């Protein structure tokens, strides 16, 4: 049986595909790769369907041994990639002979990368997905030393006509497009006004559930027209919620399905991949989506 044997992990490595949307009415988050386009790209490069399960690598530092010959491709952050100690390029399909070591080095910049393997990571489906849900614990456990990750049957080798282009480096300041609403009327100022010219900073308590930001707190209106408490209502991925302390957070793929604090806006889906790369200390500036 073809597999990837895990010899070293210095970071959080999770199995992710495109998630399990459609179960929110039962309280199940959608999960899935935080940058679905990057996973889809890596999958296409190795000849997989876009939704095949791969490995989401946070910060880097992963050592694998190929049991059986494999093809892999790395997308997202341009982490150093080695096969049997030889540097191999990011963003392209790489052949890994049986018994060879695959090393993904530490990040020099961006936060997350996705490693696809031809045939996909073939762990059991849970609610039609192989994604790990870090909020509710559904799906496979995080990848650990000693794991043997089964690999499915590889498809034909792609013709190599697709070229991966790395995203431009966002640097320390990310501009994120925000669609205002539905509860921006709960606050004394529009969030875009309140946060204009005052960057919000990513805090270390950020993860796949949410990017948490520090900065100018938003102040709630207290004119008596609003209920004192917002009854829980459905959340979307990318929702920017403002809890009691006024400091916003951006909900990502492992977010709860309902929330009781007002959502002032939603990150445009095209900017969610940027959110997947936000490191503590990075600054965020919201701008109107249209």
């Amino acid at each position, binding site marked *: 049986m073809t597999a990837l044997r895990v010899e070293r992990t210095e970071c959080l490595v999770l199995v992710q595909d495109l998630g399990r949307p459609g179960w929110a*009415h039962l309280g199940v988050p959608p999960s899935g790769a935080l940058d679905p386009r990057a996973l889809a790209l890596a999958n296409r490069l190795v000849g997989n369907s876009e939704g095949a399960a791969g490995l989401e690598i946070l910060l880097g530092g992963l050592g694998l041994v190929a049991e059986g010959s494999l093809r892999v491709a790395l997308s997202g952050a341009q982490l150093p990639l080695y096969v049997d100690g030889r540097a191999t390029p990011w963003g392209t399909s790489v052949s890994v002979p049986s018994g060879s070591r695959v090393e993904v080095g530490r990040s020099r910049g961006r936060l997350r990368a996705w490693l696809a393997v031809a045939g996909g990571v073939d762990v059991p489906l849970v609610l039609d997905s192989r994604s790990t849900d870090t909020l509710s614990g559904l799906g496979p456990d995080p990848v650990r030393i000693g794991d043997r990750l089964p690999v499915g049957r590889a498809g034909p080798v792609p013709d190599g006509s697709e070229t991966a282009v790395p995203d431009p480096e966002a640097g320390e300041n990310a501009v994120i497009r925000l669609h205002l609403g539905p509860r921006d009327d709960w606050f004394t100022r529009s969030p875009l006004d309140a946060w204009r010219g005052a960057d919000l900073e990513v805090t270390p308590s950020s993860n796949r559930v949410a990017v948490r930001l520090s900065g100018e707190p938003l102040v709630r209106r207290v004119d008596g027209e609003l209920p004192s408490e917002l009854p829980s209502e459905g959340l*979307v991925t990318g929702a920017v919620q403002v809890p009691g302390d006024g400091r916003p957070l951006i909900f990502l793929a492992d977010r*709860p399905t*309902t929330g009781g604090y007002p959502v002032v806006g939603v990150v445009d889906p095209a900017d969610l991949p940027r959110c997947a790369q936000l490191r503590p200390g990075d600054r965020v500036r919201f701008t109107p989506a249209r």
Partner: protein
Amino acid sequence: MICRPVGDHALLVQVDDARSAVATARLVHELASGADGLATPQDVVPAAQTVLLDGLRGPAQVAAWRERLSAAGPSDLHHGDAQRGREVTVDTTYNGADLDAVAAAWGCSRDEVVERHQRTEFLVAFCGFAPGFAYCVPAETLPEVPRREVPRERVPAGSVALAGVYCGIYPREMPGGWQLVGRTAAVLFDPARDRPALLVPGDTVRFRAAP
């Protein structure tokens, strides 16, 4: 119904209460299967006073759903439609640690709490907080029960609990601030089952004292 776009791919519909939310979610499913150009949302999420339509294809679909649902009113919602799910009986051992607190909130004895809880038909209104955690509303109004001042760090899996106007069952061991009246051995959520959640919005639930 007031509808607010949520980004370019979702719509939040305001309704009067949890029962209306279930009926509205059913209306959405019925409209989606018609020929009005209203595509089925990826998720339809009822909650306490809203229904979220998520995973719509784009702004045109958001606008189409907004137009159709803004024109809908209470007459479109048949509250009988709220209860078109299954009838579920939950065998419960009524040994909850907070029976006295519930008795105080309801103004009756512990035994009367147990009896009245079993007499009440509940509607599964919505889920949230954890997979399979269903917020159930009584068919007849019950007195509200305040949450515990200090939540417990660990509530046993299967705990039957009350808070506010809701009754819920903790699907697994987790922290919680609801008042515990009993415990069931029923499995609330198993992703490997055909029907992963025991309690689905639209189901009706009755609790029965286990022997």
